[in-house]
């Protein structure tokens, strides 16, 4: 397990060495503060639109940071040929996959903590209300979602040619799931066979990332989600993480690592 943590540590260091996170954080902060500085009808208590905008930016930024980071892990090791000295050590290919995954997941968690801290400060100072547990719950759920996305991206990076194509494809899939995933069953009902069965199969196969999106509840003060439901969602997420990691390991195990 130490090997996995050592590999993960290197990935985490990459988060603060690269500029992606800083750029996205500054962009999120600037847009949110600009939106918060606007006053409508001399009312300084209007806050929900700021929360909505800030959370949307956090979701987009976190997805970009996570997908971009996970997509380049294996390909960059291959391109720089550092994968060979790494595998020459007592490190298995499974440990490489697990270490990279853990590193990316923990790094996205650190990024999320920074983002949510900013969110809490901006909205808390405006509405004078600090629902810390709600923020922690939203953060944890989003982090689990990012875990699935990280595992999915690592799987993609094993099979797809370049990190850019992995980023594009995974981002499109994730956006598609977030926008359409929960409605596919309704779409299926309105179609005839065999399209109905195909859509239903997709509906039950895809990881429902929207389960982890509690932004609307957070923005509109709906209160905490039952922790038991969160646990169920976490188990559901863990299942998909393991599935994607297993598939990534199976692909990486037989992969020819030499670069032509």
């Amino acid at each position, binding site marked *: 397990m130490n090997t996995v943590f050592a590999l993960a540590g290197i990935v985490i260091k990459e988060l603060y060495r690269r500029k992606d996170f800083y750029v996205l954080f500054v962009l999120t902060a600037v847009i949110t503060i600009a939106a918060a500085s*606007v006053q*409508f*009808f*001399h*009312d300084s*208590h*209007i*806050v*929900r*639109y700021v929360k909505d905008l800030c959370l949307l930016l956090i979701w987009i930024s976190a997805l970009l940071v996570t997908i971009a980071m996970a997509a380049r892990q294996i390909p960059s090791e291959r391109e720089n040929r550092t994968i060979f000295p790494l595998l020459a050590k007592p490190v298995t290919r499974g440990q490489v996959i697990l270490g990279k995954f853990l590193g990316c997941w923990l790094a996205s968690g650190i990024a999320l903590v920074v983002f949510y801290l900013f969110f809490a400060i901006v909205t808390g100072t405006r509405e004078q209300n600090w629902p810390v547990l709600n923020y922690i719950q939203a953060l944890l*759920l989003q982090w689990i979602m990012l875990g699935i996305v990280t595992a999915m991206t690592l799987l993609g990076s094993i099979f797809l040619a370049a990190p850019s194509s992995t980023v594009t494809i995974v981002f499109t899939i994730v956006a598609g799931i977030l926008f359409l995933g*929960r*409605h596919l*069953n*309704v*779409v299926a*009902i309105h179609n005839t066979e065999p399209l109905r069965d195909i859509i239903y199969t997709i*509906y*039950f196969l895809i990881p*429902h990332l*929207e*389960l*982890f*999106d*509690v932004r*609307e*509840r957070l*923005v*509109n*003060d*709906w*209160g905490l*989600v*039952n922790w038991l*439901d969160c646990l*169920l*969602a976490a188990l*559901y997420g863990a299942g998909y993480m393991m599935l994607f990691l297993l598939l990534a390991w199976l692909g990486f195990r037989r992969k020819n690592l030499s670069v032509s």
Partner: protein
Amino acid sequence: MRKISPYWSLLLLLAACFTLATLFVPRAANWNGQSQSDDAFKLLLGEGRRLFANQLFVMGDVYFHSGYYPSMFDNQETDKDVADPAHGKAEDKGGDFLGPPKDWIEALNRHFVPNRHTHLSSGGATGNAKAASVEEILPWMKLSAEMNPQMIDSYTVGSYWLRAVLNKPADARDFLFEGLRNNPGNPQLLFDLGRVYDEGFHDTNRALNVWQAGLRHWQAQGEDAKTNTQSQFVCEEISMNLAHLEESVGDFSNAVHYLEIVKQVSPDPKGIQKQIDELNQKAAAPVSTNNPAH
């Protein structure tokens, strides 16, 4: 030759940029007839911004329901609940569009999204009217009006909540003024402005003048606009309010005149005729005390 420091070059460039900017900015502001008062959305999006106005208005309704709102895949709401009170209708209590969950994923998903039909005006998700306020919809009304200045609903709905619930008649009046600048003589906006003066500022004289102006503008419209149900409702409301005002100051003949106008557009002319008869009886009755004339 002595080498010039790059900082001096940079400073020189900045000075040149600033000088050029002072020359060009005033000229650029007048291109295409644009003035400095043109808002940022118009400059950025041009006339295309109107496309977003309805979406922003819908966002107001989404906030009014604390996020519990049908998507494009669910049964759609034809009327916006946020606009109902502003249009003189009772608030909708139904609107449960979800129905029973179709599968276990949907059942689980419902715990993570807003899952009850609530209105911000009655406390929103928490049910605590003090904690949740309808003011949260106002940015969307303002933005919707910025995007499409000809969308009358944005002004009427925004001003209704400002006046009736948030007790901000001055802001409601200013918002309606903005609407009237963009839609001169609009009877609906004039009617709402009259209500702000009457109910918000308790200034019946100004309300009377504004409603009279509203009625004049309504009558000056083309026949097509007058036969429109929504437009007839506006005429009915203006005339009815004018009749009540005239009656309250004892001018029964004027009150009857306005009720005659109401009768022409009302779905219940018999009921209005009854009110006219009552007023005529009052007018014919001997006056025992001095009525305050207006």
